[in-house]
């Protein structure tokens, strides 16, 4: 037995050392360099990512997304769905309080949800389109639905259903809801989330203070958050943001260009975090029979679209654009999305297959394709150069057209393009949002591609009121198979969220939906 003792001891010591390194310390603050400022942090009016991705710091939802993507309790300690799927009953926790000390009641929940689903207010009301009415009695909140809605629980964990204080909001100055929202935010809002707004210099900086009344307990059993404050500086320029981190002037910097990931990963003072995300980079292909000028569109032929996909070496693109941090797409949606189905990367590089498909389509003689790129985007420029070099051997003459963002959107709307690039990240922890955006013709002509597949559209409509999870999973599997086969996109890659964090900060997370989560971040003292 004796020889074993040192080993055992060593293991025990090692374990002790590991736990002490992870023992959470409370207090202190962290500073965070952002790429853009929030205009308004309000669950209803926020429409840009810098706004959306901060809402969870201020407004807690009834349900939450767990770390594995499952739905877990939030302000509501329990929830139940009726057998017909048309009634949702939630029970609030005891003793919930807003940051000003006032209790969080059913009345606040009704107020917040009614506001969130009012189509006259914000752009997100549609997410609650199935809700007929919201009522509260004591700690019990009841949602009556017009029809069963499989996404409703995910929506109750989405930023737009964050719970706001009715009394304090209504006291804010202004005649309309929008004016009140502005005044409420500007005055340092009363919050239900882990933080509150301490100060803000528009366009430059923002400071969060700990909400002492936040409900969720930390690892030490006391309420979160661990930090007393988070200080934000807005630095749109990537290089300056990183220099500031390297100089130790901030503790973390978000949106690290992938070109810098390797270098920062080698920096002993920093942790280079690559958070799994639902972000995809893809290129809608115009599938309409005719081009905008009336000429016959070769891309209307599914064989040609498949050929382009086979002719695209995704591994090289991933190396060039994401510096090896990306992954090939396996479905229309990212692998981190619920109900994702994609056993293997779509269209692995195979120039011979591409050549054969083009032959079948009668296009062996080559043809011209125009790539619409975003002016000023280095990534688009790289993609264009690489695709041009990859496709040239097949006789595809790729030309470029540079436009600005609004023009690109306009071209996408009117179908005046061949191929262009787009990026997407889910806002909701459910596949319906991304699937509707990319494939459902009636929403936006399947992301402007004009792809109109009857089977896919039917499945999508059916899945939106499908209460049986297994049936819904089957419908999603089939939709993803059809989409992959039909290739209305050039499937490019998935990318992570790259955030570089000082070694003294632990526990900061950017969620797969992009939200900045500081609730469990803490600063280690040396």
């Amino acid at each position, binding site marked *: 037995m004796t020889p074993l003792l040192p080993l055992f001891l060593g293991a025990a010591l090692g374990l002790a050392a590991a736990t002490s390194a992870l023992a959470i310390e409370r207090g202190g603050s962290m500073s965070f360099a952002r790429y853009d400022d929030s205009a308004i942090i309000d669950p209803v009016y926020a429409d840009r990512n810098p706004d959306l991705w901060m809402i969870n710091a201020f407004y807690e939802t009834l349900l939450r997304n767990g770390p594995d993507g499952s739905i877990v309790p939030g302000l509501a300690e329990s929830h139940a769905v009726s057998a017909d799927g048309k009634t949702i009953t939630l029970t609030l926790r005891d003793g919930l309080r807003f940051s000003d000390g006032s209790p969080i009641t059913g009345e606040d929940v009704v107020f917040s949800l009614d506001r969130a689903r009012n189509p006259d207010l914000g752009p997100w009301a549609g997410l609650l389109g199935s809700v007929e009415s919201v009522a509260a009695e004591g700690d019990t909140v009841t949602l009556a639905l017009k029809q069963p809605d499989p996404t409703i629980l995910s929506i109750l964990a989405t930023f737009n259903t964050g719970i706001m204080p009715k009394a304090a909001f209504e006291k804010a100055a202004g005649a309309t809801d929008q004016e009140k929202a502005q005044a409420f935010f500007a005055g340092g809002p009363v919050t239900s989330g882990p933080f509150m707004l301490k100060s803000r210099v*528009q*366009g430059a900086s923002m400071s969060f203070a700990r909400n002492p009344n936040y409900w969720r307990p930390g690892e030490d059993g006391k309420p979160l958050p661990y930090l007393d404050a988070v200080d934000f500086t*807005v630095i749109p320029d990537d290089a*300056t943001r990183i*220099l500031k981190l390297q100089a130790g*002037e901030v503790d973390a910097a978000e949106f690290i260009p992938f070109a810098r990931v390797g270098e920062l990963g080698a920096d002993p003072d920093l942790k280079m975090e690559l958070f799994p995300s639902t972000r995809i980079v893809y290129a809608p292909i115009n599938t309409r029979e005719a081009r905008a000028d009336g000429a016959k569109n070769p891309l209307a032929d599914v064989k040609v679209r498949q050929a382009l996909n086979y002719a695209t070496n995704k591994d090289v693109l991933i190396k060039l654009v994401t510096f090896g941090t990306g992954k090939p797409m396996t479905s229309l949606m990212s692998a981190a999305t619920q109900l994702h189905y994609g056993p293997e990367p779509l269209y692995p590089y195979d120039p011979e297959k591409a050549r054969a498909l083009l032959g079948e389509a009668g296009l062996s003689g080559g043809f011209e394709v125009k790539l619409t790129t975003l002016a000023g985007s280095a990534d688009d420029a790289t993609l264009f150069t690489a695709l041009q070099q990859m496709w040239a051997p097949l006789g595809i003459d790729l030309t470029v057209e540079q436009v600005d963002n609004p023009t690109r959107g*306009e071209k996408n709307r009117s179908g005046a393009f061949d191929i262009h690039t787009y990026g997407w990240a889910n806002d909701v922890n459910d596949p319906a949002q991304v699937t509707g955006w990319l494939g459902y013709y009636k929403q*936006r002509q399947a992301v402007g591609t004009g792809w109109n597949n009857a089977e896919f559209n039917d499945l999508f409509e059916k899945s939106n009121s499908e209460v049986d999870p297994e049936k819904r999973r089957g419908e999603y599997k089939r939709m993803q198979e059809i989409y992959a086969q039909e290739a209305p996109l050039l499937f490019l890659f998935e990318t992570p969220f790259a955030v570089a964090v000082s070694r003294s900060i632990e526990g900061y997370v950017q969620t797969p939906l992009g939200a900045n989560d500081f609730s469990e971040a803490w600063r280690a003292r040396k």
Partner: protein
Amino acid sequence: MPSLSYLLARLVQIIPTFLLVMVFIFLIVRLLPGDPAIAMAEAKATDAQIEQIRRNLGLDQPLPVQFVVFVKNTLTGDLGRSIMLKAPVTEVILARLPTTIFLALYSVVLAICLAGPLAFLAAARANGAADIAIRSVFQVGLSMPVFYIGLLLLTVLAAKLRLFPVGGYGTSFLDNLYHLILPALSVALYTSAIILRNLRASLIEVLDADYVQFARAKGLSPRIVMTRHVLRNAMVSTVTLLGLSIGNLMSGTLVTETVFAVPGVGRLMLEAIFARDYPLIQGLTLTFAVLVSVVFLLTDVVQSWLDPRLRQS
């Protein structure tokens, strides 16, 4: 001091100019190809939302009506709402303006501190070794874009040597002086090259001028000659030059604010442009025009105060 009537006359002169300025700003947005409302809308906007934007901007009215409304609103300080920041344009600009003005003044002071003594040194012995060295260095400075000067300073002084902060903005006056030194210096290096060139020439001219030679011959002490004649003349020409190059200075701060992440109106202008936030672009363009006019006016005033002869003409 210049008389009140002189000031008034100058102000009256500005009115037609400003009306034209307003026409330009008005037309810039209206003449663009396509519908500004669509350009401003988010990709996911519905037709109703686009119609709403059009109504908010008054784009459904005939052009002359729009112009009258635009002038009236502008005069009452209402520049519309920023699309990107969801706040009144006036409010947004006023919040950022002090930073830019601080940065501009800071760089002017730095430029004078830099160019002044060197110009005297160079002019004292024209075409001497010091003169040639100083002029060569500044000639190179004149050939460098402000953003490049900024990048060099940023890399060497902030990132490599860590002498100064990388960027941002302070909370107090002294803190600002410290935080903004590199951005101010980038603009100052370019401005000082212009000042130096002019100041050196005017100093050489004055030192050669008959009345200075005469004053010397009269036996006036060099110090009196220097302050009474040389300095005064040098100041007149420098003030004029600085006044006239206020546009350059503003262009420089626009660039340097972007390089150093300084939250002023210059960086805001670029952000507004990338977001196609037309009300904000309009408001900012107007703000810059007002700034330049005010400086032109101040230059006139200071000039006529320094050199009473100018007032008669």
